[in-house]
């Protein structure tokens, strides 16, 4: 029952706000500690050394998948925890972004088999056992914050499949790990009024 989107739809009143993570402009210094904290928080060992240690000095940031064979037995923790936020870089401008947990999420609307849902506290979550990796969510998310987790596969026999991967607001923590670790307070977790800008109308 918990997995149904309707529970959230029923619980929430229109306009009710919830805490999500917002990037603060011009604060990010491109240190990627948010990604580090995210990976460690979502690892089994909760320890940066084993969550990270992939045969010496290779790390498992998102881009590192290009260099590391995920089936390599020497590589660190399995399944490899992957970062749910990403620092995007453009010359000297940086911004760490992650799931908005929208009130009416595009990804939940797009999900082919209902494996994405809003939980009772308002977070947008994925049923990791059900997701078949059709990538409708990646396509639908206008914020571009959904990635693929190729460490998990629910469809047999398809080489590059995976499942939906996005921020889960660190269940069990009062402040998400990325916000807590950010040295320049470039990420804040707070409630904000929903604003409709004039140009949108």
């Amino acid at each position, binding site marked *: *029952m918990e997995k*149904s*989107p*309707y529970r959230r*739809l*029923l619980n929430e009143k229109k306009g009710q*706000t*919830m805490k999500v993570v*917002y*990037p603060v*402009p011009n604060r990010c210094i491109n240190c990627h500690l948010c990604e580090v904290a995210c990976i460690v928080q979502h690892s089994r060992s909760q320890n940066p050394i084993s969550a990270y240690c992939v045969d010496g000095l290779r790390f498992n940031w*998102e881009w590192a998948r290009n260099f590391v064979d995920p089936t390599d037995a020497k590589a660190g923790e399995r399944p490899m925890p992957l970062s749910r936020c*990403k*620092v*995007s*870089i*453009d010359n000297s*401008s940086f*911004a760490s*972004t992650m799931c*908005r947990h*929208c*009130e*009416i999420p*595009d990804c*939940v*609307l*797009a*999900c*082919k*088999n*209902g494996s994405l849902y809003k939980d009772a506290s308002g977070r947008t979550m994925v049923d990791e056992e*059900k997701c*078949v990796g059709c*990538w*409708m969510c*990646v*396509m*639908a*998310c*206008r*914020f*571009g*914050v*959904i*990635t*693929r987790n190729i460490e998990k596969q*629910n*469809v*047999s026999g*398809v080489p*590059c499949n995976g499942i939906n991967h996005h921020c889960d607001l660190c269940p069990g923590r009062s402040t998400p790990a990325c916000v807590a670790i950010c040295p320049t307070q470039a990420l804040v977790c707070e409630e*904000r*009024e*929903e*604003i*409709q*800008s004039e140009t*949108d*109308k």
Partner: protein
Amino acid sequence: MKYVLVGNSFASIFAAETIRKVDRTGEILMIGEETQRLYSRALIHEYLAGVVEPSKMYLREENHYDYLNIELVAGKRATKLLPDRREVVVEDKAINYDRLFIGVGGSPFIPPGMDGLDKFPKQVFTFFKFADAHQLGQLCQKCNNVVVLGAGLIGVQAAEAFATIKKNVTVIELADYVLPMVCDETAGGIIQSIVEHEGVKFCLSDSVTELAGAGGKLKEVRLRSGKVIPADLFVIAVGVRPNVGWLKDSGITIDRGLMIDQRTRTSIENVYAGGDCAQGQELISGSRMVLATIPIAAEMGTVAGFNMAGMPAEYRGGIPLNALQFGPAQIISYGYVKEKEGQEVLSVLDAKNRSYKKLVLEDNRLSGALFLRAIDRAGLFRYLIEERIDVGPFKQKLLSPDFGPAALPMAIRMKLFGTRQTRVRFPKMELAHNAS
């Protein structure tokens, strides 16, 4: 208040859930054509291939309707709409409504010009419903040669599924490359080679003229080019047309689908529509067209649900979009990826990794984007296209592998990430009676 929803798929279920969110006591009645538990039609090819268990195809929990207090009439088809009497006729019973939602979807289109199509009813199929996939899966155990007509997304997905279960499958397509609605020639070529590698054969720029057999049994398919292809099963997958024939006499405005406005209202009062049978705003051309994809259907359904329950909401329009997976390759496609004259094209092709990105621009505004394999975080382009954003200032960065929110001008970035906004708009002018 009595809400009647015709149809039982994405648009209708989101409409019903949204109605229930706003109106907890109103009576909700859904009329579904199929008796099957609510499932996703977009996954039947994976079911046929045997790579996805049926349990993953169901959209909602089994007791979902009971929980939401929705009455479901399954296995019945609406046959007539009587707007003067506020009634919808389901087979021979008239059902009264206060608000009606029409989300009947589409049905497969059977192209004309093929001889002998009606001679072999047990071997000619469309590929649309769970029952089709199930039946084809059982028939496949006994036969070997499958011919699929149409290399659109349903056709190629079906062909790939047949190849997965080791059938000898041939796809016949009128266009000169595969997935003509989603891809351009380059991406189509890559997908074709991937699917060919899995064992599917293609006959492009060709069409079927005749189905031939003996003793009531289909043996072969004859093509316009003169080729003859052995066939035990013939699967038609050339597209879907809105299911609006039953509404012809009701006086509702129909073009290709049911015309809907920004509030998803049809031309008849208290009748709303959404999904594959509705024709709503398309944002690139500004005209209204049928956009038959899940996210659009679900968004229309949600907006209709709010409006029906008395909470004004706006559907702002959509663009053609799709995401597909073939073998190891994923495709995400937005808008119109095949360039027309006067349009600017930006593209990167990595032949070794078979990854490909292509953008089509017109006056510095994106009108199409195609991603093959390199799909992570592609969604930003949906925003750029739908909002008709002038990408001139950061055009050269769009195709960089690092393209992300940081490359956007601060004003756009703040609009995206500074607030928690939703696409569905709730106009403030009229506050509804039961909106809290």
